[in-house]
C-alpha cells in the first residue's frame, strides 16, 4: 500500500506542475492575445462613440434623472 501512496504523491506532483504550468501558459497567451486584440480595435476603431448604443430605456432613465435633478436644483435654490 505504501507504494501506491508514494505513487499517488508523485502523481500529485506531476499534476501540480502541469496544472500550474497550464495556468501560467494559458494566462500568458491570454495577455498576448488581449494586447493584440486591443491594438487592433484601437487601430480600426479610432473613436468609440460610447453613447451610440442607447436603448429607449436609457433615454427614459436619463430624462427622469434630468427632471429629478431639476427638481433638486429648484428645491435647493428655494431653500436658500
Amino acid at each position, binding site marked *: 500500500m505504501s507504494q501506491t*501512496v*508514494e505513487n*499517488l*504523491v508523485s*502523481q*500529485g*506532483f506531476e*499534476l*501540480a506542475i*502541469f*496544472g*500550474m504550468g*497550464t*495556468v*501560467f*501558459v*494559458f*494566462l*500568458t*497567451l*491570454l*495577455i498576448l*492575445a*488581449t*494586447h493584440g*486584440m*486591443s491594438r487592433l*480595435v*484601437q487601430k480600426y*476603431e479610432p473613436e*468609440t462613440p*460610447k453613447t451610440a*448604443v442607447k*436603448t429607449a*430605456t436609457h433615454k427614459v432613465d436619463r430624462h427622469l434623472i434630468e427632471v429629478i435633478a431639476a427638481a433638486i436644483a429648484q428645491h435647493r435654490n428655494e431653500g436658500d
Partner: protein
Amino acid sequence: MSQLAALWQSSGIYQISVAQAVMILIGLFLLYLAIARRFEPLLLIPIGFGGILSNIPGVEIAVGDGVLAQFAGMGLDTGIFPLLVFMGIGAMTDFGPLLANPRTMLLGAAAQFGIFSTLLGALAMTQLGVFDFSLAQAAAIGIIGGADGPTAIYVSSVLAPELLGAIAVSAYSYMALVPLIQPPIMRALTTHDERIIQMQLPREVSQTEKILFPLLLLILVALIVPGAAPLLGMFCFGNLMKECRVVARLSDTAQNALINIATIFLGLSVGSKLIADEFLVGATLGILGLGVVAFAIGTATGVLMAKVMNMFSERKINPLIGAAGVSAVPMAARVANKVGIESDPDNFLIMHAMGPNVAGVIGSTIAAGVLIQFAG
C-alpha cells in the same frame, strides 16, 4: 394505546440521533454566521437551512424522493445549478480593469498555486496516514483554494461528490473570512514602501474590446484547455450577453431572476449533502484545515508574484493587489484596497485590484479544467 405509541415513535424526539442533532446545530451555526456575521449569506442561508432540513429524522427530505434530493438530482449532480450561477456571475463581471492592464492577469495565475499546494497537502496527509484521500478527492479539496464557490461545487460534483458538502461549506466560509485571513499575510510579505506604490490610472476600454474579450477567452480555452470549456463557456456567455448590449432583457434575467433561482436551488441542494453520516467524518476536519491553508498560500503567491514582476518592469505594481488574485470577487479586491489605505489614505487600489480579482476567476477555472481532465 398502540396508536399513542405509534405517535410517539413517529416523533422526532424519539427518532433523532446525536449525529443528527449535531448537524442541526451546525446548520443553525451556519445561519448565525450568515445572518449575524454576513458570511456569504446568499449561499450559506440556503445551505444552512437545507442542512437542517436534511437531518430531520423520520422523513425523507434529502434522500429518496425527498424534495431536496430531487433538487440535487436535477441540478447539482448534473452540474447545471453551479453553471447557471456562473453564467449569472459572468453577466455581472466587468473585464474593463483587466483589459486596461492585462499583465495583472499573471497575479491571478500565481494565486492558483494555493489550489495545487493544497492538493499536495491532501496527498501528504494520506501518505502520513492521517486521512485517505484519492487523487480525485485531493483535487476537489484543492479547488477550495480557487476561492470561487460555483467552481468548487462544480469540480467536486464531478470529482468527489461524497465530499461536496464539506468542500462547499469550507469554500464559502473561507471566502467570508478573506478579510481576516489575508491582511496579516499581505503585511508580512510587503514593505511599507511597496504598500504605498501608486499605480497609474487605467486607460478607458472601448465597448468593442469588452465584447471581443469573452470570445477571445472562449476560443483560447477551446484550443488549449477544453476541459475548462463548460465552466468558462457559461461564464463568457453571461459576460457576452451583458457587454453586447443587444440582449439587455436576457442579461437582466441572467443577473437577477435566473441566478437567484439557481442560487436558491444550489444552496438547498448543497444542504442536502450535509447528512450526518456523510458530513460528520474525519475527512471534513481535514478539508476545513486544508481549506484555510489553500487561501493563505494563494494570497502569498499572488503577492510574491507582484514583487517578482516589479523586478522586471518599470511600471511598478503595488503587491497588495496580488492578494486579489485568489478571486473571492469582490471581497479580496476590497481587502487589497483597505490594507493599502492603512499605509496611504489617498491610495485607492480597488480599481487596480479588480483586474487580478477577475483574472483569478479565469485562473481557477483553467486549473479546474486541468484537474477534471487529469484527476477524473
